[in-house]
Structures are given as structure tokens and as C-alpha cells.
């Protein structure tokens, strides 16, 4: 007897440079797929976008999306929590459904990042840093990630070449995902010779910039037919850390994961498919360890040896599927939903029952772990 909120439909837009589409067109492309499939109008709309204000000069985005979708009288809000926006939006939707405030919540993640030239985009991204203490110093997230990568290599005696395993794996997975932005494989040598972004981080260790939109309908189990494919949201834990990771351990992720596993009475090895928010190679590896899929310092080796049972980022992750900032979390939830219901059009996990979504803000400044289970 499923008591948790369920997802019965997901819609995705291929991540990429959509020069001919703006925020509302992208949102509609994902959302209308879901509204049509579920066949009901939602009684709440949550739009997640991390930077629509600075990238597109558009706040009040949820109303604009609601109107564009032709939804009448629906309460509409936009959620923002940096890269965590999408996953947090789904978590909020769960709360609305569990409280009985809504029966169907449409969550639409959307980001339009490719309208600005690089210099302006980088300035816009500074809005995700502390405006008083970090942004004026000129430090970027990439710079901090580079430092973290260096610390990780020093602490665990890991060689630079070993860390190419992550982008190589992500690109291999994305090459099979029709929704991925970078659908080409890469070799380790290409990673090591790609332009330096923030040493030792190279271009092929960093997410690409792209537009995207993803939508899911989160519903109360009583309000849906028990016949179709569905995934229940078994649990969510969201933790803000004391400080952004200044040493190579993702404490917020670790705490969120262990709290959730405890609450559900499961261990990491029970999860068969995961979508980790790998904004950088080092984020992906540290998250894998913090989630309990590998011991500290051993994530790269574990991946290389194939000793992790769970299928890691079959979508290609942020690295290759893409990272449309505030929409990414919804992509991840949609992808795990599709894995659990056997409908993912790329690399598939074998008959999975449990899936995990990991999202973070910054470098584990805040982390969210969500477990989904095949509903019926």
C-alpha cells in the first residue's frame, strides 16, 4: 500500500543550445508532455530555475510559465536553491502532497543559459557565490573545485590520470542518451590535454553550459490509477553544511545520505541506480564516496574496477548529459523515475527497484538525497 507521493510522468528536453527557444518555450516542451500523459491539470505549479533573473532578466517566472501552459487559477511559485533548485522543488512538491494541500503538483525545472556571451555568463554565475565575501575576491566555483581536486589527490595519493575515469564514463553513458548535450565519447588523453580551467581541473572535467527543461508530476497515490508505471518518493533528506567543503569530504551529502538510509532501513548497496550531481569530476567522486558507494579516496579505483554494483549516472551526469542549473535536479528525478519504470531511452539499469538522486548546491554547501522506489 503506497502512502508516499508518486511520480507518474516525466518530460525532458534535450539539453543543448536552443537558440530559437526561450524560458517559456523550453518549459512548455517538457511540461506539456507530462500534462498530456497524466491527463489532469495540476493544482499547484512549482518552477525551478537557479538564475532566470540574472541570465534572462526574468523573475516571477512561475506565473509566466503557468500562463503559457494555459493553466488557470493554479498557484505558481519559483523555487531557487542554486543547483539544488530542481531537486528541492520535487521535495517541496512531496510536502504539499503529503500534507494534503495538493493532489497533483507539476514541477518544471527550466534554465536558459546560452543567450549570454561567456564573460557575461561568468558574471551571472557569481550570483551563486557569496556576494559580500566571495564574489568581490574574484574566486569562482571552478577555482575552488580545482583546489578541492588538488587536496583530494594529495590526501589520498591519487594520480591525476586515475581521475579521468569519471568524464570518460559520463561521456560513454551520454553517448546513448538522446537527451544528452554531449553525445560523444572521450578518451583519457583528451581529458588530460583539454584546456586548463583551474589546474588540475580541465575543460573535460567541467559541466558544459546548456539550456534545458524537465518536468514531473508529483501526485498523491489515491489520485492516480494503479495501472500505469509509477515511482514513489520514498524519502528525502536535505542538509545545509556548516561551511562549503574546504577539505575533500562532502559532509552534507554524507549526513543526508546516512540519515535517509537509516530512516528507510536500507544501505547504499541496495540502491541499483543513482544520478549524482557531478558538476565537476571531483564533485562526482566525492559524492560517490559520501553516499557510501566507495571508501574515501577510492571512488576512481572502484569505478575503474567496476566494483560498484549500482549503475552510476546512466544519463551521463552533469558532465555529459548537461547541467541546466536549476533544471538539473528535475532531470535527475525524471531519469531515475524512467529507470525504475523501464522507460529510460538510453543505458538502462537491470530491473531496478530502488533509485537515488543526489543534488548539491555549490561544493556541498547544501545537499539533498532522495530515494525513489518502483511503486507497483
Amino acid at each position, binding site marked *: 500500500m503506497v502512502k508516499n507521493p508518486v511520480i507518474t510522468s516525466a518530460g525532458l528536453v534535450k539539453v543543448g*543550445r536552443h*537558440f530559437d527557444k526561450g524560458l517559456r518555450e523550453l518549459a512548455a516542451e517538457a511540461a506539456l508532455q507530462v500534462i498530456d500523459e497524466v491527463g489532469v491539470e495540476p493544482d499547484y505549479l512549482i518552477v525551478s530555475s537557479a538564475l532566470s533573473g540574472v541570465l534572462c532578466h526574468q523573475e516571477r517566472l512561475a506565473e509566466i510559465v503557468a500562463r503559457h501552459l494555459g493553466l488557470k487559477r493554479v498557484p505558481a511559485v519559483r523555487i531557487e536553491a542554486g543547483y539544488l533548485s530542481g531537486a528541492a522543488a520535487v521535495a517541496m512538491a512531496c510536502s504539499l502532497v503529503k500534507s494534503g494541500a495538493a493532489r497533483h503538483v507539476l514541477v518544471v525545472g527550466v534554465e536558459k543559459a*546560452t543567450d549570454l*556571451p*561567456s564573460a557575461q555568463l561568468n558574471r551571472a554565475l557569481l550570483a551563486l557565490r557569496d556576494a559580500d565575501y566571495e564574489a568581490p575576491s574574484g574566486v569562482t566555483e571552478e577555482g575552488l573545485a580545482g583546489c578541492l581536486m588538488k587536496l583530494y589527490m594529495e590526501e589520498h595519493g591519487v594520480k591525476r590520470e586515475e581521475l579521468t575515469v569519471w568524464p570518460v564514463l559520463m561521456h560513454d553513458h551520454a553517448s546513448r542518451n538522446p537527451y544528452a548535450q554531449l553525445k560523444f565519447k572521450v578518451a583519457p588523453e583528451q581529458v588530460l*590535454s583539454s*584546456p*586548463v580551467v583551474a589546474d588540475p581541473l580541465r575543460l573535460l572535467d567541467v559541466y558544459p553550459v546548456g539550456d534545458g527543461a524537465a518536468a514531473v508530476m508529483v501526485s498523491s497515490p489515491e489520485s492516480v490509477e494503479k495501472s500505469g508505471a509509477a515511482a514513489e518518493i520514498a524519502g528525502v533528506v536535505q542538509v545545509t553544511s556548516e561551511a562549503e567543503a574546504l577539505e575533500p569530504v562532502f559532509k552534507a551529502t554524507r549526513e543526508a545520505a546516512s540519515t535517509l538510509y537509516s530512516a528507510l532501513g536500507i544501505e547504499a548497496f541496495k540502491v541499483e541506480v543513482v544520478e549524482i550531481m557531478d558538476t565537476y569530476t571531483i564533485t562526482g567522486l566525492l559524492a560517490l564516496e559520501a553516499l557510501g558507494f566507495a571508501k574515501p579516496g577510492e571512488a576512481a579505483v572502484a569505478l575503474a574496477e567496476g566494483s560498484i554494483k549500482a549503475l552510476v549516472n546512466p544519463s551521463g551526469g552533469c558532465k555529459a548529459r548537461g547541467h541546466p542549473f536549476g533544471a538539473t535536479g528535475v532531470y535527475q528525478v525524471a531519469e531515475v523515475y524512467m529507470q525504475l519504470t523501464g522507460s529510460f531511452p538510453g543505458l538502462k539499469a537491470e530491473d531496478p527497484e530502488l533509485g537515488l538522486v543526489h543534488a548539491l548546491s555549490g561544493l556541498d554547501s547544501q545537499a539533498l538525497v532522495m530515494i525513489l522506489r518502483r511503486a507497483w
Partner: protein
Amino acid sequence: MGRPENGVGIAGWGAYIPRYRLPASEICRVWGFEPSTPKNLGVEEKAVAGPDEDSATMALEAARYALRRAGIDPSKIGAVFVGSESKPYAVKPTASFVADAIGASPKTMASDLEFACRAGSEGLRASIGLVSSGMVEYALAIGSDTAQASPGDVLEFTAASGAAAILVGPRSNGCAAWFEGSYTYVTDTPDFWRREGSPYPVHGEAFTGDPAYFHHIVGAVKGLLEELGLKPSDFDYAVFHQPNGKFPLKVAKILGFPKEKVLPGLVTPKIGNTYNASALLGLCKVLDEAKPGQRILLAPYGSGAGADAYSIIVDDGIEERRTKAPALSALLSRRKVIDYALYVKFREKVRRITW
């Protein structure tokens, strides 16, 4: 059924490339670019106009060579068009300066045109029209630029200086090659622009690719092939606008032209992107070697955006005209390497005051 272009031929052609070269490695050294950047652009060095040169002086040099090859009385020239996005004057035509200097004035049309990198080509299409109608006997179309780029912008690797002139006249008077057909494809696409008063242009980075360069060149070439009933295999050479050393090869692949047909007309790796002269200099290089009867595709492109496509058939008259002026390879090998400091001085990128 003949087309109006068929009665029009290239009476003479001329190229001018300044001698100074700035190696891409100098830009890397000063601005901290990785060596992979110029490698990915396919550009080794670029031609830089000297301190006493500008788009007008270069236009004149190219025009003189074209006239030498044509061997005609310059008073028979009834129109001079200069396409440039780096005019010495916002108001004061380069065309009247060139017309006067070569002896085409006073009985002549003269005008400067702007359409980013394809204004010279627009002048060529207009020239073909004027000659085919009989309104003028000969018309001179020039593309000339001392292209600008903001210091430290990746555009600095390719923004270069050069000029090319095409003198067209009645095919029946004898020519090096004649026009089988021409086509222009234009839309309002803001991929690259320079505001009035701005010393440097801005560009839309990735937006300058698929929706701009590729879309318009493919549109123009496909339009031309359809109208003429031709296929890529009917052509011996394919000369495209060359903003870097890679785009022409990529668009050739999309259209189905093998790279062997593109390489003879690819000059950007050695001199950078000469903007209005870009595709036309590629044509000049091909005319230095092409044989009578061969068919050349010429496809210039300009941001904003638009592309042209011409089918040009080489005539018997090419051999006698070829040797009357320096070959492009001679201009390419006339080189003096400068460093970034001299480049900045020559291109007036440092502000000086005198009092």
C-alpha cells in the same frame, strides 16, 4: 536558357596582403591562451597592415593588380564598389579615392558597401548586374579590411588585413573566367556586429556557427546548385568564406565537397581572416592555378547575416592574364614577423596623446 550573368566575365583580378605577420604564439604569450586555441582555430599567424596602410591603400594596390591583368583603359570602368567594415572614414567613400587613383573617374559610379565580411561580394553581384545590362562596360568590385578585435579576445587570432579586387566586364571582350550563375541568401541574424563609434566588434561565440555561418552558406550554395541543376561533383574547386582554418572544411563536409577541392583556396591558416577579402583572396589563389574549363564554387559569407554563391567557369583567357601581376603565393611568402608590441603600435591599439 541563359542567365544575365553568363555574358559577364572576370577581366582581371588582384590581391594585396601586407607584409607584416603576427604569430598566434605571440597572442598566447601576452594573453595567456593555451597553444591549443590557435591550433583549434587552424590559424598559425595573421597579416597585419603597416602603420601607413589602411583599407583604402590596400584596396588601391589590389585594384592596380586587377587592372594590370585586365589590360584595359581604366576610363572604361563605369563603377567602383568597395566593401569594408574598417573604412578609414565613416563618411568619405574609399571608392571615389580608388576610382580617381586608377583613372576611372569622373564618369563612374562609386560606392562603399557594408555587410560585415560579404560587402565586397555584394559589390561583385552588383557589378555583374551593371555589366550584363550594358549600363557600364567594366565594373570593379573590391573587398578590403584591416579587421579589428578587442585586445585579449579570441577574435584577435584571426582578425587580419588584406584586399582583393575583381574587375568584371563583357565576356565577349575576353576574360579569365565567366559567371555561370549567382545566388544570395540573407536573413536578419545578429551573430556579430560593431556599434557606431566602437573600435571593436562583439560576437555571439557559439551563435556565430550553426545559425549564422553554416546556415547561410548552406542556404546560398544549395539555392545555387538547385537553380543551375548542379552537384558538388560538378565543381573542381570550392572556395568559402574563411573566418578560421576549420569552418570552410566543416561546411564543405556538410555540403558534400571533398576537402581536396577546398584546400587550394584556403589561405586563412597563413594570413588570418581578411574579412571582405577572405573568400575573394581564396578565389585569387585558385585563379593562379585553375585550368580553362574548370568550374569554381565561390561562397562568401557576412555576419548579420548573408551568404553568396557563384559558379565560375574558367576561360582560355586565364593563362595570359595570370602572369601580369604577383601570384598570391608570392604575396604569402613576402613576410616580416612582428611581435605583439609592434602589432599594438601598428594597429593603434595603444592610446597616445600629443600636445
